[in-house]
């Protein structure tokens, strides 16, 4: 066996330039794929985490049907108590079977009202939140630009977005009049002072959302202790599945659903899928071009050695054995290419992991999806191995055809070939 490997390795380097160029083609594509896939995955991670942390959370507990049709009367009863219970249970995981999940829990109620300042009126979403827990599940409390965030669960105060403040021509200390309807269809009205103005950079969010303390919201909108969702956020979206399973075990009410982010934000999941499927088209073309390059190299290497193979066959080496020799050569080529490719890809991508990546115009595109203007590629086993792995397999497949040609050789004719 040792001699075969030695032979194959030496055969490979009979044409150092040709082998070098073919390797270069493999390495070039490997580096490109590692970088592109890492960038893509990094972008998805960021898209998911940024979108979810801004308001949605990773998992929500909602009344059955609220997801499809978010109406006032589809509520979670005794939401504050239920949220406290879940918080307690998730923190108290001491059994040996369940992994500890570091999660934050906060109850929320959503309503709609006509919001008026002295000068202007706009329709807006009104969120009732738990001021002491909301900062752990959403970034909005941390984005207060003026004034302060809500200070207590039943205080009569409101925070609004910067665009809304501008449109209402209202500032800190000004009073807002809310007019809407309560859970039971009754008339809901309140006058609250603005204590804080947040700015998330997402114009829609900054235009449309008013936050009130949850207990005060429940008074105004006749909620009788109920709310619309209990938001649970883990440290990363990768824990979503785990978290969903835990929560399903904790909830024993058939009227309540445990809904994960993929259902809460179907557009997000779909945007990622759409992006991924179009990207595969590009990757496919790159892989095909490398395969052509490798195919040509091995075809040459087999054709130019027709005489040599003829002599080997005449000396009694079986076609299978010669075929294996050629196959081993291509294997060496593929492995060498892959190793260099992974190393170079990792080195190249690491630069961007440290410094980030941006292109002209990215700021506008990124802000639409609530992203920062710089991407950091996710260099992990998937991004590092997927591209080079596919090219490795394509390389081996491309080398199959030349290797099978050996079986067609007739020793005498082959020896006479020039």
């Amino acid at each position, binding site marked *: 066996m040792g001699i075969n490997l030695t032979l194959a390795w030496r055969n490979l380097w009979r044409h150092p330039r040709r082998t070098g160029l073919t390797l270069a083609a493999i390495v070039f594509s490997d580096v490109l794929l590692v970088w592109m896939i890492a960038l893509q995955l990094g972008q998805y991670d960021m898209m998911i985490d940024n979108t979810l942390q801004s308001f949605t959370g990773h998992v929500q507990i909602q009344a059955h049907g609220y997801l499809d049709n978010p109406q006032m009367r589809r509520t979670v009863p005794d939401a504050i108590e239920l949220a406290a219970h879940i918080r307690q249970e998730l923190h108290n995981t001491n059994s040996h079977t369940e992994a500890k999940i570091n999660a934050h829990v906060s109850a929320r109620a959503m309503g709609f009202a006509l919001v008026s300042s002295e000068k*202007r009126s706009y329709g807006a979403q009104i969120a009732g939140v738990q001021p002491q827990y909301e900062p752990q599940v959403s970034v909005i409390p941390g984005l207060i630009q003026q004034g302060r965030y809500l200070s207590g669960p039943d205080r009569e105060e409101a925070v609004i977005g910067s665009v809304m403040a501008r449109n209402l021509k209202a500032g800190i200390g000004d009073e807002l009049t809310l007019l809407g309807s309560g859970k039971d269809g009754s008339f809901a009205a309140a006058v609250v002072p603005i204590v804080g103005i947040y700015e998330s950079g997402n114009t829609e969010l900054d235009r449309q959302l008013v936050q009130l303390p949850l207990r005060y919201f429940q008074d105004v909108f006749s909620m009788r202790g109920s709310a619309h969702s209990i938001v649970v956020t883990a440290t990363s979206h990768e824990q979503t599945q785990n978290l969903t399973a835990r929560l399903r075990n904790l909830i024993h009410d058939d009227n309540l659903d445990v809904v994960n982010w993929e259902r809460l934000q179907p557009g997000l999941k779909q945007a990622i899928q759409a*992006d991924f499927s179009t990207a595969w088209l590009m990757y496919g073309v790159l892989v095909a071009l490398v395969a052509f390059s490798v195919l040509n190299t091995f*075809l040459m290497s087999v054709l130019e050695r027709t005489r040599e193979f003829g002599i080997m066959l005449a000396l009694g080496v079986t076609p299978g054995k010669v075929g294996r020799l050629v196959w081993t050569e291509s294997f060496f080529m593929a492995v060498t290419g892959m190793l260099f490719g992974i190393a170079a890809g990792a080195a190249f991508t690491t630069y961007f992991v440290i410094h980030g990546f941006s292109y002209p115009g990215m700021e506008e595109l990124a802000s639409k999806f609530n992203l920062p203007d710089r991407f950091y590629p996710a260099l992990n086993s998937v991004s590092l191995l997927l591209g080079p792995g596919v090219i490795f397999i394509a390389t081996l497949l491309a080398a199959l055809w030349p290797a099978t040609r050996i079986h067609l050789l007739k020793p005498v004719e082959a020896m006479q070939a020039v």
Partner: protein
Amino acid sequence: MTRYSFGTITAMLTVIAWRNVWRNHRRTLIMLGAIAVGVWAMIWLTAIMRGMVDQMITDSIKNLIAHVQIHAPAYRDDPSIANSMPAPSDSLQQALQDPAIQTWSTRVRVPAVISSERESAGVTLVGISPLREREMLFLAGAVTDGRYLQSPRDDGVIIGAKLAERLETRLGWRIVIMSQDPDNDIVDRGFRVVGIFDTEMEATETSYVFTGLQSAQEFLKMGSQVSELAVLTNDYRHEQPIVDKLRDAAPDLEVLPWQEIDKYLATMLNVVEGFVWVWFIVVFIAMSFGLVNTLLMAVFERTREIGLIQALGMKPRLILLQVLIESFFLLSVGLVFGNLLSWLSIIPIQDGWDISALGVEGLEYAGMSTMLYPVVQASDVILSNVVVIVLGLIASLYPAWRAARHVPVEAITRI
């Protein structure tokens, strides 16, 4: 010794080069395959990308953006009734007669609250002149239930399917719309739902409620004031002259092209321009390794031959030229196949390609439609061919230089 002119020599070299290309037809075919796939990838993928963006822009333009919008200066920052403007002046009307303008229309566009007996929602109330908006707005083709608006006086409303579901209302039922009049007083009025529209984007369905322009003006007590004047030109790529002309005609109003109204769209268009170049270069590099390799092989296996003709008096630069001509043949035949392949793969989908069948989901979220119409731009086809030929010949300089550099005696004695 006969001295041949450069032309004759080149002609001879061309014949020799063409025959050399086919000395090893398998290798040549594989290389042609690689070039053809590369060129195909350049042209086809670019056509698809352009098609997607074009579709996106066309859709967005119909989604209340149009090509040019005219507002009161403060309207965009604060789209309320207080920032409305008078109906177009005579000079503006005159400017709007320009033959490059396909159509134009005024709109009322203000925030409002819509309520059924059960639910309320925040929306934008849009008052339109239905006939003038037929080409400019998506609405006429999107009403799936009930009817489109009939005139500016039509006081029925058309709402989105998703909004109807949220409000638990339906065709023929009444809803209440609440908004503000110019004096900051709340106005409300019942409207009958005369139509339900369905679009690919859910956000459009839940955000807009349409009624007749005059009916909206009366409801909001705004007289003949309007919020917006939308203009559709003949070509979204060349709206700038119109913008300039309208700015002159209406100096106290804000005249904006679509690129400034939806910066995301404009950026998308630029990013695609950049992407085309990057993609061409990347494909070319991946392809060039194979090209250089193939030519190197072709040159190496002819070392003796090249040595011999050099010994017989052929000048090195002619050998260089011969290899370059070989490369040119390889590249151009590959290009012919590549262009043919692109043409063949675009013909079946040029009338639209429903990519939802491929399992490509989520396009709606990105503001795209699932029907894809590839857009083949002559400049892309020319660019891809030029990139392949020019860069291909540059890459071939290396093997050609290696061939020309042989020392005759050494080369002949080499086996």
